[in-house]
């Protein structure tokens, strides 16, 4: 049983890990064909991972409705929302346009899915304003650097910023966009590049651990 439960899965991770790694560097037709096939497989396997999320959402809300727990009525709307997209999709065979006509799925995309998703994210704009007012505190030189960079970017991205800058600080001979580009291209690049290199080292180490079976947390317990 240990063989089926543990050793074969570890063999799978090792074999596929090593073969894909080696294939990256070997331009032989066989390695290319291998990578092609495995890539197509991977595409199919990962699509099933979505079902994990779907089932767990459905199960949570089904349980809530069944138990008539707090606010169970709202849980019904999870299923209403799901059907409001899936039924039109089936009617329209997954197409949003038929010629120049919008199909029921196109309608559902535009007025339901698009609206809900876009508005949920748009709400965050309001919290930026209250954060700016209440939590953006310049208490150290480091915070000052952050503030100055942010200030120049916020102003530099809109036309009115350049106009105001020209009136107040035009005499310095430096344009706001010039300053903004310098911050984005020089100190900010250094900061981000340091982060990138740091992450790359971390990712390579973690990947090696996975391939060699040292990192096993993703498998869960026995």
């Amino acid at each position: 049983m240990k063989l089926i439960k543990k050793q074969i899965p570890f063999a799978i991770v090792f074999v596929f890990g090593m073969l894909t790694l080696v294939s990256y560097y070997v331009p032989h037709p066989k390695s290319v064909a291998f990578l092609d096939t495995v890539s197509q497989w991977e595409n199919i396997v990962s699509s099933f991972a979505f079902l994990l999320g779907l089932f767990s959402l459905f199960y949570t809300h089904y349980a809530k409705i069944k138990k008539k727990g707090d606010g169970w009525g709202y849980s019904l709307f999870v299923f209403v929302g799901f059907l409001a997209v899936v039924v039109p999709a089936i009617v329209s065979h997954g197409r949003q346009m038929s010629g120049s006509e919008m199909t029921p799925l196109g309608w559902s995309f535009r007025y339901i899915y698009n609206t809900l998703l876009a508005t949920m994210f748009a709400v965050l704009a309001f919290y930026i304003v209250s954060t700016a007012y209440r939590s953006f505190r310049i208490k150290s030189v480091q915070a000052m650097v952050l503030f100055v960079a942010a200030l120049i970017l916020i102003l530099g991205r809109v036309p009115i910023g350049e106009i105001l800058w020209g009136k107040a600080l035009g005499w310095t001979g430096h344009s706001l966009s010039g300053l903004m580009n310098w911050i984005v291209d020089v100190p900010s690049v250094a900061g981000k590049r340091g982060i990138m290199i740091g992450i790359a080292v971390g990712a390579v180490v973690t990947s090696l651990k996975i391939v060699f079976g040292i990192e096993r947390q993703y498998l869960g317990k026995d």
Partner: protein
Amino acid sequence: MSHTWMIAGGWLAAGLTIFIFSFLYKDNPFFKIAEHLYLGAGMGWWFQVYLYSIWIPKVADPLRAHQWAVLVPAVLGVSLVTQFFPKISWVSRYGFTFLMGYGAGLAIPTMLSTNFMSQIYGCIQPFTDVSHMTRLGMLNSLIVAVGTIAVLFYFFFSVENKGAVKKISNIGIYFLMAYFGTTFGNTVMARFSLLYGRFDELYSYSGANYFYATQVLLAGMVAYFLVHGLLAKKKPEGGAAN
């Protein structure tokens, strides 16, 4: 779809938008309904996309054409779902180890080349052509190189933060702050852009061609809060508990 459907869609979209924004004033049932619809519709959208772009054309169609090789990834995929059944959840390991092996195997060379080697090269490369550089260009390249090294010091030597190491990693923090500052500045633009998008749509639904959907629904929402507020005031103290 007919004109009537478009108008109905406008009303629905304006309503859902206003319901979600109403949370900014106070939590309320309309927001909760929209929130739950969002969860369901989001999953529904993903489901139909997977259905029509993977499961039918890449799994069902090949199987119907007797291309049995597709059974391998399909079975590995289905194995993931055994996660929900504790007794056989170990079966899902076959799917997960395949995904992890493939992902890790590809991540190693690409991370090394793109985010490690190329970035080090990016720091050094400007200095290979010094004769063509302006003084300012040279200074900027030097700042980038020094800044990158300082940030790395901050990350890798954070345990032993003493003496010269501490000084260098402190310089690193300033570069990180500059990066976070630019990110914050740009986040403001990004978030406001999204809000602009919603308001722009609400504005288009406020026209006579949509029978003033935005105004009517907004007025309805305000009326709800007014009535709700009045009723809450009228209730005797402790009434809420009963």
